């Protein structure tokens, strides 16, 4: 069956074996680098998420303060519109 033209089988098995071995080693380095790049990327994502959360909570506090300040401003303005009160 195997005698057909083309045939199955690695033509130069030894060389291929050596190349495959070298390939495994090279790819070990590549996958090491790529994994760490992905970890970096993931860190950035995580960092962004955290930052956004923190900014949101900061924003919320600022909002509260802003509204409070607005209220105080109104109160002060009503009071200072009647200077006679302070005499």
């Amino acid at each position: 069956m195997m005698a057909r033209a083309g045939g199955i089988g690695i033509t130069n098995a030894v060389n291929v074996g050596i190349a495959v071995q070298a390939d495994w080693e090279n790819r070990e380095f590549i996958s090491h680098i790529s994994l760490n790049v992905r970890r970096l990327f993931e860190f950035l994502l995580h960092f962004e998420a955290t930052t956004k959360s923190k900014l949101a909570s900061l924003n919320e506090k600022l909002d509260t303060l802003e509204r409070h300040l607005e209220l105080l401003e109104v109160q002060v303005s009503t009071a200072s519109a009647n200077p006679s009160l302070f005499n």
Partner: protein
Amino acid sequence: MAVLVEEAIAALSTFSLEDDQPEVQGLAASLATERCATTSPIEYGDVSAYRLSLVEDTKAVNQLNALIHEGKEMSSVLYTYRSIPKELGELPDSMKHSQAELYLETYQVLDLEMSRLREIQRWQSSAASKLAVDMQRFSRPERCINGPTVTHLWSMLKLLDVLVQLDHLKNAKASIPNDFSWYKRTFTQVSVQWQDTDSMREELDDLQIFLSTRWAILLNLHVEMFRVNNVEDILQVLIIFCVESLELDFTLLFPERHILLRVLPVLVVLATSSEKDGDSLYRRVKMNRLINIFKNDPVIPAFPDLHLSPAAMLKELSVYFQKFSSQTRLLTLPAPHELPPLTSFQYSERHYLIVNHIGAIRAEHDDFVLRFASSMNQIILLKSTDSTDVDWSKEVKGNMYDMIVEGFQLLSRWTGRIWEQCAWKFSRPCKDSIPADSLESSTSNSDYEKVVRWNYTADERKALVELTSYIKSVGSMMQRCDTLVADALWETIHAEVQDFVQNKLAIMLKTTFRKKKDLSRILSDMRTLSADWMANTSKSETDIHSSQHGGEESKSNFFYPRLVAPTAAQVHCLQFLIYELVSGGNLRKPGGLFGNSGLEHSVNDLKLLESFFYKLSFFLHILDYSVTVGALTDLGFLWFREFYLESSRLIRFPIECSLPWMLADHVMESQNAGLFESILLPFDIYNDSAQHALVVLKQRFLYDEIEAEVDLCFDQLVLKLTDTIFTYYKSWAASDLLDPSFLFALDNGEKYSIQPMRFNALFKMTRVKLLGRTIDFRRLITERMNKMFRENLEFLFDRFESQDLCAVVELEKLLDILRHSHELLTQDLSLDSFDLIVSEMQENISLISFSSRLASQIWTELQNDFLPNFVFCNTTQRFVRSTKVSLVPVQKPSVPYGKPSFYCGSQDLNLAHQTFSRLYIGFFGIPHVFSIVKLLGSRSLPWLIRALLDHISNKLAILEPMITGLQEALPKSIGLLPFDGGVAGCQRIVKELLNWGSKTELKSEVLHGIKEIGTVLCWMALLDVVLRQVDTTNLMQTAPWLGLMPGPDGQISQSQEDGDSPLISLFKSAAATIESCPRRSNPSSFNTITKQAEAADLLYKANITTGSVLEYTLAFTSAALDKFCSKWNAAPKTGFIDITTSKDFYRVYSGLQFGYLEEYVEASSNNHDVLGDAVAWGGCTIIYLLGQQLHFELFDFSYQLLNVAEVETATVYYVLKHANYIQGSESLLEAMRKERRLNNHVFSLLRARCPLEDKTACAIKQSGAPLQRIRFENTVSAFETLPQKGA
């Protein structure tokens, strides 16, 4: 280098990245490369390096893959094709002259679209011929090239699938032939002027045939394929491959499974239609296997809103393929719409409807999540321990690998289920659609509504939401641990491959294949191309020989792990070799792939080879981790409805028809506490669809449509969700405020308790991912809530303003509920403080305004309605509305309509609270004053008191001229009543005396004036009672802090004479302790606290001795009366008490009192209902304050009459003689007695609260001669602190 990277990455983990947002959304972001590893990223360029003579095969695979890629683009063009002429419209008459231009313009527009169709036509014919050529080349029995590889088989199937899909889509899109005929018409119009249009016309005819022929692509493919009659073998191989993969199932992810299911019927038709040997197929694959597959999946999803039915397809194709039409068994399969009801029910029951599986899915999910989390923990533990225990590490990683595989399979099954359910629903539109409530809204239900909107029951929607949330949560869980588990996965896969090629193959080489040179060559090739010997440091290949004959254990080769996975090319080659091994390279080999071919290989070895073969195909999915997760959790198809849009001739459907929104809406409508955390998941579907529209379909307009819908839906979501949350918190507060012991005793008490719901997770969503935007959901909710509270307050005030003063208790209760719900809500959200909201809505933010919306409303109400129309009852201490016609008509706005959530939340609670507040609606008394005190507070209450006091003095000023008038109408002299006339005689005399002349009309006005003054006084008396109570409570609360103790004489005394109060000393000692402490942090802040404690001490001490409001009111009235003293209290000229000529106030009042008592009895007009007891309060107070109490008691007409009556009743004779008459006057006398008792009560109360004894005591000289009335200075202490009006 490597170490540095490692360290740098490890250093990153020292950052603290806490993030409190819960994961209730799907994947946020993923890094995906254009080409994924499932198909080799370098187009199998590295295959040639393995020298397997696969050059031709690789070339073919790449060619087919390129065609698949193009074909997908074509089908997305075709899928998103929208009919143009529909948009063009008719030409108005006025423009008929420019018809030619119009035709030209239309032609140009259409030409662009038609060129795309022409391109599809061209592409399909070239693709079909290439596929046919490819199949022919690789199916020659005397083959001269290696192949086809398994990858190649897959490529053929995929390309075939693309062609089938394209054909199916072309058949389904009705608008395309229509558009084309339009195009052709314009072409004929336009081309009149052109020359040489024959070739164009020919081309047009071709296109027309292509477009209008059903299954034109398949027919063409058939022709191409059977040009040379030798494709049967490969077709049979493909069919076997399909059937076996489908029967094995577990290695397929759902997209592949659907491909196989779609392709199989076409393959069967093609194979049977062969001229040569149509039936040979059924010798290799039993007919029953095919029928089973077709029966199990009667409906297959093809496009998001388009399905395919194998049975219907077979039937339709049999018309075109003569030979196939003899396959009656396949043709009698029922198409989905022909399924009889019973079996269809069984089908859907068993297979399609998620709702039937949701229980099992839930269990699977819960179980999987637990085990996944535990193996994750193991991995983390392993990484942190630096353990050298190889076995343990291998086990943990292997476990993780198994979990990932299981996760992919689960995700694939679940998402596949959703696809299939959709297809099923599309195939069976809802027949008895249109629930009754929407009959009027949509008279013509579009088809899409029938298949989507009305086609999902509530349970099905719930199940869909649940399943969506499982898919998304498992997906994001797996995505998150991507980089954590990646190395473990690589290592495990590496180990698997190495174990197989180094150990298992070694054994096979030694045993089964020892004698077969050819086959063992294949095995050793497999080792050559994938074995990683250097990772196996413990033993070299030679060692294996020596250890071969050792124990069972030592047979397995030990090798060190390497964190590298095999490449796609390696997997490709290994699969090819295994396939070669089992099939012997002969396409005509009977039986299946790993089936009954036990003639050469042992069963065990075959099993090993088979399992490794299928494992290999799954490795690629795992290596392509994030892409696989992304593909398996992509639910974007739920939105697409291009086919239905086209068939219903609409531009868009309302959002109610949109499945994602239906799901979101269902979550909110169902009020199911468990579903609320999934509320954002439907928006993930939109994210997916947008991604699909941009990346796969590449259509901007689809994205725009999605974006518009998302904008709309998200607004709706925020609106509805905040409404739900608000209602929930209101109900919670309202049920909290109901008396628990009362509820406990109640039979149906549980309907007033609420189902707990959790919104905490939603409140923490500060960044919702929506179409690439980040939305601060929490902020939106907070904003909206602030607004809701304001609206609700506004509503409550509006409501109060439309009712009378008695509603103040209800208002207070509703405000309490609102305040309590605010309190509950602020635990999770940072809302504006309630007091701020209240003062904003009351419009008294200003520091110098002491009135408020509520205070002025109460005052207006008092002035316009309460004082004139309410009567006081001294016994009950309540005011009630006079039953008489309202003297002063009151106009009020109508009660505004409010949602139930603006009252107490749910209907039941509304009813409960209404029942309570209804108790207070009919009168005004102590509870109402309590509410007023609580609502107005110390800020506005003084304002109200001041307004009421001013009302008294105004009334007095108004009364003054009238009383003068009445004084003038009194006769010159009025003597004491003579006793001889008896009761009747006296009554007559008094009547004669008091005819008032022309001033009669003043009488009732004066009486009403006095009544109003009396009402204010009574009101103040009630207020006094309440304030006393409130002050006492405050005192009891503050006394321990201020160091106040009850003294021996009942007075308040300070506990420590010289020292500070406990409050101050507490903080002082705290500050001292802090200061003495060696590690003191910041003593200055404690000193500040001490200072503040002193200030508080002062403030609270000042509040202890508060005056009485009633006494103050009396003092004020007295001061106001001083002006009229000269007129109403004329000093007698003689110095003695003036009896006959006195026209003092008491005399006028006495006359008035006699008059109204008489009226009350005679006319039985029940004058009492108009005036009540308040008139006695008013009159007596004025008399008392003028110092005329004794005069009044001596000379009052009624009192005199009573004296006469007393004498009379002593003589029995009189009684007998005038029995009738006495009976008549008895009621008058009774009324007078009652009045006297009331007056006495008021006088005694006044004497107690506003003692004036000193005054009369010094009005008599020692000699006994009366002294002229000394002008009495009203010097009640509180009076001096009274803020002067207008100051």
